[in-house]
């Protein structure tokens, strides 16, 4: 009998997370007959395969088999690009019958290898399902196909003065279905909350081919278990999201930002409290940058926003953004805040700037958003996306740096920089460790699972917004108890007893 989870047995086996790929003995490869069957469902242009009956050139299939970082290389011999939910349903029904593994794929912009075929699974790309189904400018509810690109949706609703409740660097490529399946966070999360709140309904093709139509546009609906929540962040392991109903907020009429230099990290928390209290509903971002990251940004031509004299030996920096409906009202609040910050007996900040024009507004954001690019120029980055209590941001970074020093790996010969920046408002720290001369196994061994352990000690999450995918499966237990994982397995078993839906992802 097929034993479903026998390829698991946690983490302790290997520290090379990305490389312990399970063998899918329960699954069949895609063959010519299968392609022939898919041809009866889909138009010829919707099927890509290296099998001889189709013989798509390798170059055309490559984009579906490599993630954007070039880190994960998929093995799929065939890719299907259905145009309708009905087609998705028929494909899944057939795959269930034939025991063919399916990897649902969106814009392929993930960071944890969640959308890549590990063995012989077929890739089901949602990219051809890219129509907006409806938009109601009164309620702001947008209903769209899963394959719609996030930026296209933003542009679609912009003339109606609405914005998408999420915004990420990958907005030009990532698809809304993928955003939902990975529960993507991003820059607007602090203000508009996570997708668990803004998604009102989903249309999902379940692993047996059934179409689960929960494309509700209701804001309130307490009728039984809220099944859609399982698919938000489900990373395609429980079903394929094909349609989305999402609540979009009205576009803010006034935006401002300030950039502050803080003498000590200890001031970040009191500052966060003060800013939250005084700005109230107009605060839309609270971002943190440590001194190492700031100095690196300056070296690469970001800023300078502040004069070096005024910055002095400030240890960290904070960017606060406001979005509101009335510029005068927002500015008054901001000015009151700044006045109280500067006139306090023991000021929390050394200095700062308030943007005076849209250009300055953009330059201030550019300093924060440009860091990712600077990191790439510094060397090869190990990037950790973790949630830890706000108070621990600095000591997680320090602990990693100290470990590198104690192992003799800190310096231009190995790890040249350890830095932290991220979304304080969401408790999400982006820990970046730069290997100046490239990735090396001993560096990775020094970092992992050490980082996961210190995150676990602080009851943090090893993946704040990037997901688990195939990269962090074996680190899942650092953030989820055995009982939680066991019940996740039971959920998986209920939805996908054949284990055909994105196998080898999420669960260890």
């Amino acid at each position, binding site marked *: 009998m097929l034993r479903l989870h026998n390829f698991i047995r946690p983490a302790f086996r290997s520290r090379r997370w990305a490389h312990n790929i399970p063998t899918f003995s329960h699954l069949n490869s895609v063959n010519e007959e299968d392609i022939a069957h898919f041809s009866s469902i889909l138009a010829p242009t919707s099927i890509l395969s290296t099998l001889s009956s189709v013989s798509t050139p390798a170059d055309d299939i490559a984009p579906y088999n490599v993630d954007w970082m070039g880190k994960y290389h998929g093995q799929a011999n065939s890719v299907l690009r259905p145009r309708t939910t009905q087609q998705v349903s028929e494909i899944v029904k057939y795959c269930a019958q034939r025991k063919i593994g399916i990897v649902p794929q969106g814009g392929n912009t993930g960071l944890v290898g969640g959308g890549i075929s590990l063995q012989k699974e077929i890739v089901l790309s949602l990219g051809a399902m890219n129509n907006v189904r409806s938009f109601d400018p009164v309620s702001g509810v947008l209903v769209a196909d899963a394959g719609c690109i996030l930026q296209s949706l933003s542009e679609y609703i912009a003339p109606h003065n609405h914005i998408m409740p999420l915004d990420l660097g990958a907005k030009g490529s990532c698809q809304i279905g993928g955003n939902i399946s990975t529960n993507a966070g991003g820059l607007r999360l602090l203000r508009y909350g996570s997708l668990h709140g803004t998604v009102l309904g989903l249309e999902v093709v379940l692993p047996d081919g059934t179409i689960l139509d929960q494309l509700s546009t209701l804001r309130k609906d307490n009728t039984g278990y809220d099944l859609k929540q399982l698919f938000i962040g489900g990373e395609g392991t429980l079903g394929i999201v094909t349609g989305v109903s999402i609540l979009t907020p009205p576009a803010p009429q006034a935006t401002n930002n300030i950039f502050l230099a803080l003498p000590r990290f200890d001031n970040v928390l009191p500052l966060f409290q003060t800013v939250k209290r005084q700005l109230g509903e107009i605060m839309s971002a609270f971002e943190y940058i440590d001194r190492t990251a700031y100095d690196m940004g300056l070296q690469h031509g970001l800023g300078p926003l502040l004069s070096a004299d005024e910055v002095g030996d400030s240890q960290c920096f904070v960017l606060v953004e406001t979005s509101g409906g009335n510029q005068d009202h927002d500015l008054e609040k901001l000015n009151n805040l700044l006045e109280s910050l*500067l*006139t306090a007996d023991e000021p929390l900040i050394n200095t700062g*700037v308030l943007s005076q*024009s*849209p250009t300055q507004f*953009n330059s201030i954001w550019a300093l924060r958003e440009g860091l990712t690019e600077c990191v790439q120029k510094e060397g090869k980055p190990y990037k950790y996306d973790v949630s830890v209590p706000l108070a621990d941001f600095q000591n997680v970074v320090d602990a990693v740096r100290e470990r590198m020093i104690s192992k003799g790996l800190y310096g231009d010969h190995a790890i040249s920089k350890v830095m932290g920046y991220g979304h304080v408002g969401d408790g999400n720290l982006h820990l970046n460790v730069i290997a100046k001369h490239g990735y090396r196994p001993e560096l990775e061994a020094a970092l992992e699972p050490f980082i996961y352990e210190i995150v676990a000690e602080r009851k943090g999450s090893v993946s704040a917004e990037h997901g688990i995918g195939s990269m962090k499966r074996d680190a899942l237990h650092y953030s989820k108890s055995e009982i939680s994982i066991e019940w996740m397995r039971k959920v998986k078993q209920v939805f996908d007893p054949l284990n055909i839906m994105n196998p080898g992802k999420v669960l260890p």
Partner: protein
Amino acid sequence: MRPSAVRLLNILVPIKRAVDYAVKIRVNPEQTGIDLNVKHSMNPFDEIAVEEAVRIRERLKDAVKSIKVVTIGPPKSAETLRTALAMGADSAVHVEIPDSAPSPEPLGVAKTLKALIERQKEGVDIVILGKQAIDDDAGQTGQMLAGLMGWSQATFASKVEVNPEQKVANITREIDGGLEELRCKLPVIITTDLRQVQLLNEPRYASLPNIMKAKKKPVEKLTAAELGVDITPRLETIKVTEPPKRVGGGKVANVDELLAKLKEAGFTGKRA
């Protein structure tokens, strides 16, 4: 012989509040002008002028006695003055015009500035302003003011050096095909070019402590009438429209169709 006391310099910086350059300009529905209900900020050329004035003081220290900024505009222009004060100016003058009033033209502005200069008890030694405003692109105010005052003028400056002892300014200006160096006697009117940014000055951000200080700096409010100047525009705007939208291209199936389309559009070839 006793050295004569160094003459302390007073600098005047006229600035203008304009639609921010990052904003997409749209014609208003009445076709009388552009939609002004968008983000405004200091005219970038004027921002360079403010920065340069502050830098002249940083170089000459106490030899610069005062930096005064002035704007002529609606009540909201006060914000622009505060920005300039936060950048380092000492005091400001706001010649206020009603929100509904049309924007004054360069001659009216120059006359207003002349009247203002004449009111300054300690005189003005340097007027430094942007070479043009990005909203009307007239580029005339500095020159007209120099004409009205009978002062030296150095336009499109990319480098400014002031010698307070000799009461002269050496100015490098942008001209076609190169740079020209001028030596002007004070008082002088200087208009700043964008190249200043690349060469010496990226306008500074108003830091929070300076924004707070700026709130306590004096702003004098005046009207054109109080200055005895008429700033009524002499030009009448009849209509403002957007340029015609670009029509997208099309695809043709073959060469014959392409030739037919070209002929249709009036392009004909001649046999060589």
